């Protein structure tokens, strides 16, 4: 038998014969498919139900965000980053703001840093909740979706109260925050933390020891830590494969070094481990939020930044740990008001490359589980 990796999924020369003769049956999944999380198109090469290889076709949601950046000022581009990973808009904003701040050599004041951390971690929980709901839905459990959406609603309410938007928040400004935390922000966050803790237990009750869930996720989409590093996979996927790599610890940004939290890791690198890692990350995020909300200092929320930003000529790469992995911004400044080039390193895009490796020799149903477990957002993949 030939090595399945030598077969290109797009090798369409061999005729698509029949089901019976389906040494190579090519099936097109997406872009309109309920389980591809938007407009991902996957071309599957199957042997019966076994996946010989697959190729992702992306770009159905391409909006040219990086090009747009070159025609906008630094401030004007800020809202656009929210549209990339729209379920974790706050993290995207944080990454961009910090990158530009690095370029300008300013630092946001402590109070702003604390509020940023709270909002970003809240957003991480929201993102993981949405992931859990849709992932479970893909595997056939419909109920967790409604549970997670119910609880995510509380986070979105806090966002709405804080900055007026629920999804594409545009919460941060370069140099700090535009809005002071509203009256009762801290108590809202505290209430949320005590509200959501038992809810996470509830999700785990539904799934963690569920026999069918275990059978569907254990040993599915296995990827080793070595492969992850070779492919550039980051985030929970990398950590579930046993690599303890979290930019919040490795290259602390914002003021994460002030907080005490752990990096959950898995061992087997399968779908179940990724599920467990994300569940534990939600708990760790709550821990960070608890610490941050206790320690919010008084003070200004905006550093001194010029009205018209003209960063010095140079380039900067800054990355943060977004819910889905390493989110990096590479910005080249030519000294004008507009960036010369902005390149985004979106975690979803890079993680999606691992799909092929993870799905080889698995079944079609597993492809869906693996797409779910990679937690991709097509807005970010296509930009």
């Amino acid at each position: 038998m030939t090595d399945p990796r030598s077969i290109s999924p797009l090798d369409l020369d061999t005729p698509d014969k029949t089901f019976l003769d389906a040494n190579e049956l090519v099936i097109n999944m997406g872009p309109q498919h309920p389980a591809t999380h938007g407009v991902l198109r996957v071309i599957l090469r199957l042997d019966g139900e076994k996946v010989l290889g697959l190729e992702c076709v992306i770009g159905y949601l391409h909006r040219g965000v990086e090009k747009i950046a070159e025609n906008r000022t630094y401030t004007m581009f800020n809202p656009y980053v929210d549209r990339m990973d729209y379920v974790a808009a706050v993290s995207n904003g944080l990454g961009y703001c910090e990158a530009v701040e690095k370029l300008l050599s300013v630092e946001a004041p402590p109070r702003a840093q604390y509020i940023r951390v709270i909002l970003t971690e809240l957003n991480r929980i929201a993102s993981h909740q949405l992931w859990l709901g849709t992932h479970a839905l893909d595997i056939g459990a419909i109920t967790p979706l409604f549970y997670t959406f119910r609880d995510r609603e509380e986070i979105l309410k806090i966002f709405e109260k804080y900055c007026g938007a629920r999804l594409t928040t545009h919460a941060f400004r370069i140099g700090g925050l535009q809005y002071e935390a509203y009256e009762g922000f801290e108590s809202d966050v505290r209430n949320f933390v005590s509200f959501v803790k038992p809810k996470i237990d509830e999700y785990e009750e539904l799934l963690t020891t569920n026999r069918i869930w275990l059978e569907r996720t254990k040993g599915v989409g296995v990827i080793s830590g070595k492969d992850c590093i070779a492919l550039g996979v980051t985030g929970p996927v990398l950590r579930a494969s046993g690599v303890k790599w979290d930019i919040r610890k490795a290259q602390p940004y914002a003021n994460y070094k002030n907080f005490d939290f752990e990096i959950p890791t898995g061992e087997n690198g399968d779908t179940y481990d990724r599920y467990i890692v994300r569940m534990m990350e939600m708990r760790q995020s709550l821990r960070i939020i608890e610490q941050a909300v206790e320690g919010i200092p008084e003070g200004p929320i905006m550093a001194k930044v010029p009205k018209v930003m003209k960063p010095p000529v140079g380039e900067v790469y800054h990355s943060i740990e977004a819910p889905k992995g390493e989110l990096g911004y590479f910005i080249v400044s030519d000294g004008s008001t507009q960036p010369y080039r902005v390149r985004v390193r979106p975690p979803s895009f890079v993680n999606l490359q691992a799909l092929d490796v993870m799905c080889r020799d698995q079944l079609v149903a597993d492809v869906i589980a693996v797409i779910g477990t990679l937690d991709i957002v097509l807005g970010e993949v296509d930009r």
Partner: protein
Amino acid sequence: MNPSLAPNPPVATPFFFYGLAAIMIIGGILVITRKNAVHSALALITTLLAQAALYLMLYAPFVAGVQIILYAGGIMVLFLFVIMLISIERAEKERQFNKQWLVGIVAAAALGGLFITVYTTTTKGRVLFPEGRASYMDMQNTQGIANLLFDQHGGTYMFAFEIASLLLLVAIIGAVVMAKKRI
């Protein structure tokens, strides 16, 4: 034995017989003339179900049940399954009949002639198969069959039954060996 289970005397027998016979014959003709194998299979299913109804008319409810559950629900699903696995579009465009029309007609005519002869032969003024109508029986058919197959002292057909089970085992293994690409 439950007396309330005694079947009723037959109603409108000729009507049902000719109706079902017509369904069976038309179904049979469709089976051998359709281009598309799925259509043939559906026609065959109709024939089989009509035949199950005929079994009921013959007071053979158990055989009728077996006919439905095994033939229509089992074997025909297998047929449909296989038809879907092999390409139909191509098969449909090809020539449907081989060049054995003559052989077919001759064989059919010979056999038909044989049947007619047999059915109309009279010996000593009696036809070979008299028009004996079975009287109505209030026997529990299923238990009767069970007694023949395996009663306490080893039924008449116990050995044949075991052989049949062996045959099925052989068929299972044979089918798996034939159809599986890699064992």
